[in-house]
């Protein structure tokens, strides 16, 4: 039989990767939400009255982020104006499907949605690019364009900040990749909770300390509607290696991700770019 909850008499449904605690559903929801709230408070991420765009891809991280941001904004009166912001890269069979998910989220969470497309911003789609340049380096281009598109969309919406769904596992992976590449500059910057290049809007990661397992379990138990297919143009090999390394070492140490994070204690609102997979 499953263990009991560490906090109440309920039936435990999961073992937390961070602490090893066993929690029931309700205590897990509470712990998960409160940790994100604490991250937001500790880092002073927001000020009342601000407009915040949630970078929404339809995937698990940004779907849970939208749900939790909405919930915490209501529960703790952050006083934020939240809006979903999606980028349409123009990838048939991938982004068109995931945008359908975001459109459903718009109704489910009662949040306005803005979609900016590569086609309207740059005059072409990723489908057209791949036809021209093939599958080599296409992800690098797409990553740079997506980053800029999110900024342009946020400027159009006149928001103050962008939040993305990057989680603790993503940050740990990025640390490992920057170690492998020997990129000291990025290694210094990539664990910052808020980043933003000169002239661009600040970007924050409220899930910086949230483990992927818990995001997926939260989405599963809450039956949140998310899209889960790999991009048809992305082999993702390099990140894939760093990812399985993190997952394997995570098996051996509950606080493993935290060790990668504490490579450097970060000042808040650090200037600089981050290496980012979309949230």
């Amino acid at each position, binding site marked *: 039989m*499953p263990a009991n909850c560490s906090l109440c008499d309920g*039936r*435990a449904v999961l073992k937390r990767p961070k602490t090893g605690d066993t929690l029931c559903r309700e205590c897990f929801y509470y712990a998960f939400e409160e940790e994100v709230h604490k991250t937001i408070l500790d880092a002073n991420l927001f000020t009342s009255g601000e407009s915040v765009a949630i970078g929404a891809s339809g*995937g*698990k991280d940004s779907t849970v982020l939208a749900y939790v941001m909405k919930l915490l904004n209501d529960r703790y009166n952050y006083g934020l104006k939240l809006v979903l912001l999606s980028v349409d890269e123009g990838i048939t069979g991938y982004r068109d499907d995931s945008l359908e998910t975001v459109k459903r989220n718009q109704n489910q969470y009662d949040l306005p949605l803005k979609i900016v497309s590569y086609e309207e911003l740059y005059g072409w789609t990723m489908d057209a690019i791949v036809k021209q340049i093939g599958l080599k380096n296409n992800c690098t281009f797409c990553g740079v364009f997506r980053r800029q598109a999110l900024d342009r969309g946020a400027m159009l919406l006149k928001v103050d900040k962008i939040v993305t769904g990057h989680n603790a596992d*993503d940050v740990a992976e990025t640390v490992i990749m920057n170690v492998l590449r020997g990129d000291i500059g990025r290694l210094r910057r990539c664990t910052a909770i808020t980043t933003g290049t000169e002239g661009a809007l600040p970007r924050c990661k409220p899930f910086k300390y949230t483990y992927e397992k818990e995001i997926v379990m939260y989405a599963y138990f809450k039956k949140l509607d998310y899209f889960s297919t790999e991009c048809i143009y992305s082999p993702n090999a390099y990140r894939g290696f760093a990812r399985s390394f993190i997952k394997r070492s995570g098996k051996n140490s509950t606080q493993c991700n935290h060790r990668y994070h504490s490579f450097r204690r970060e000042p808040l609102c650090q200037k600089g770019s981050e290496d980012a997979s979309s949230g």
Partner: protein
Amino acid sequence: MAAGVDVSLEFSGGAELLFDRVKKHDISLPSQDKSWTLQCLLAWIRDNMLKERPELFMQGQTVRPGILVLVNDADWELLGELDYVIQPNDTITFISTLHGG
């Protein structure tokens, strides 16, 4: 001799892509000499259900890191993981955390 067991398998989060995009499979495990543990089930899935690229689902005797396993909606880490003995009509859920962001 352990009797056969009927179980429901559920695949989500992208794991269903490895199983003809079908999310729910009701299966009957045949009787065998030892009892049906999750470890036996994984080997059975590999040999009977995975058509191609088993390395996307399994690594050695267990699931690939990043695939979550639940038994009747409880984390298998609470239940002894591979050693858990499957009970009739258990629902076993596999959720990939590796797809999309």
